[in-house]
């Protein structure tokens, strides 16, 4: 273990921290609509999702062979840049969680790395055409495809069951939702836990602790799986509220259609080698399902804020990643420690800010908005 330097250890811890935020940021993707329609109790939903995420992490052996899928020049990447990129991704994930905005964890990671490599190695280290091909085009196309699919499916589901007993319909689709939500969770575990494993493995290889072409050691698989699973179980309730309640009022046939659309888009694109954001696909599916039911209200204000967050995610994470990379580059170990402490402080501040108006398992379905300001006291008549 003499190869594991201070910096490598810091990168591993940061990667696991990112994995954790990835988990609780993305619980909503699989479970938000099931929680909103009552198909699953909130705590049961996050437990199932967490277990399936850990399971997915162990199931998949195809660890990402590159950190970024060719978006940055991997030969120029140093552990310091990976650290800086991860800091950018973590902080953006936490900020969007505070605001209850479902943004893409993958885009945050890509953005952080792009910024860090741009500053650390120069602009030739970033493959701009790959960014367009692998990030931008799927980001535009996938939510639209999922939305159209969910819209048509929802419309037909209501048409077919129009004369059926409504309680049978609600109950039937709720059961279906448990299956479709579980598939999304499993697919998420096999995809997203891989990213962290890939980052840690490649860091270990670059530090000489592992041979070239080595697969991830068991402790890497286990810790990455546990980090994402724990994050999922903790539940990003703020984002769950936005996706389950905020975008539109979801009934169980719509939830089933949205999840079916999301699962299909994720699986077909993975099969054909498109990288895409689970978050964006699921949000697109939910919006489509909202449009497919007559009289369902789609809250375009919330949807608009979410789309702005999507647009800002990559540049914002890149900015933080770039600034961190510049400090790490010029400050060495001292700079790394400073950035790590700053990141921890900002993270602690965000968590404290979320306490002012907390969203938990027991109040996740009570409202459709996530606010940061403290809630007005509800007990008005207690002045004795």
């Amino acid at each position, binding site marked *: 273990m003499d190869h594991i330097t201070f910096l490598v250890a810091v990168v591993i811890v940061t990667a696991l921290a990112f994995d954790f935020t990835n988990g609780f940021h993305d619980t909503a993707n699989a479970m938000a609509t099931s929680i909103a329609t009552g198909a699953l109790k909130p705590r049961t939903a996050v437990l199932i999702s967490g277990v399936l995420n850990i399971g997915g992490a162990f*199931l998949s052996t195809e660890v990402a062979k590159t950190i970024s899928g060719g978006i940055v020049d991997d030969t120029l990447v140093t552990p310091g840049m990976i650290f800086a990129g991860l800091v950018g991704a973590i902080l953006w994930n936490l900020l969007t969680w505070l605001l209850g905005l479902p943004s893409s964890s993958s885009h945050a990671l890509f953005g952080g790395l792009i910024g860090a490599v741009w500053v650390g190695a120069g602009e030739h280290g970033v493959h701009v055409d790959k960014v367009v091909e692998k990030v931008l085009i799927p980001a535009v196309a996938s939510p639209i495809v999922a939305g159209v699919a969910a819209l048509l499916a929802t419309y037909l589901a209501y048409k077919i069951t129009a004369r059926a*007993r409504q309680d049978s319909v609600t109950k039937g*689709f709720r059961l279906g939702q448990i299956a479709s939500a579980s598939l999304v969770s499993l697919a998420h575990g096999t995809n997203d836990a891989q990213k962290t494993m890939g980052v840690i493995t490649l860091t270990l290889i670059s530090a000489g602790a592992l041979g070239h072409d080595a697969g991830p050691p068991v402790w890497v698989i286990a810790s990455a799986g546990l980090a994402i699973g724990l994050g999922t179980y903790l539940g990003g309730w703020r984002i769950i509220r936005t996706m389950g309640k905020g975008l539109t009022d979801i009934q169980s046939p719509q939830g089933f259609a949205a999840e079916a659309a999301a699962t299909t888009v994720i699986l077909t694109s993975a099969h054909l080698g498109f990288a895409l954001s689970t978050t964006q696909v699921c949000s697109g599916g939910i919006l489509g399902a909202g449009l497919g039911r007559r009289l369902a209200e789609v809250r375009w204000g919330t949807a608009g804020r979410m789309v702005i967050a999507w647009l800002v995610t990559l540049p914002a994470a890149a900015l933080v990643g770039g600034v961190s990379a510049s400090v790490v580059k010029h400050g060495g170990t001292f700079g790394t420690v400073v950035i790590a402490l700053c990141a921890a402080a900002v993270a602690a501040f965000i968590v404290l800010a979320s306490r002012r108006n907390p969203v938990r398992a027991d109040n996740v379905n009570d409202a459709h908005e996530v606010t940061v300001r403290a809630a007005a006291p509800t007990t008005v008549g207690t002045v004795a």
Partner: protein
Amino acid sequence: MHVDWTALGEVTAVSIAVTVGVVVVFALGVLGVSQVEAAREKDAGGTHTLGFAQAGLCFLACAAIVAHGIYLIVPQFH
């Protein structure tokens, strides 16, 4: 820059077709269950054979699709 429009089109077509297919089949299954439950409500021993068969077939088809989904997710199966 190379954009694979064919693959993109394929993803679009397959995703929409499969989603609509699964949800329609599931909705037909739910319709079957609803008929069975309606018949049971009318008289205690009542049943609806067609509804029962319809629900069984549809849910079986959905289970097969879910199984295929799991097959696609888990690389060891390939």
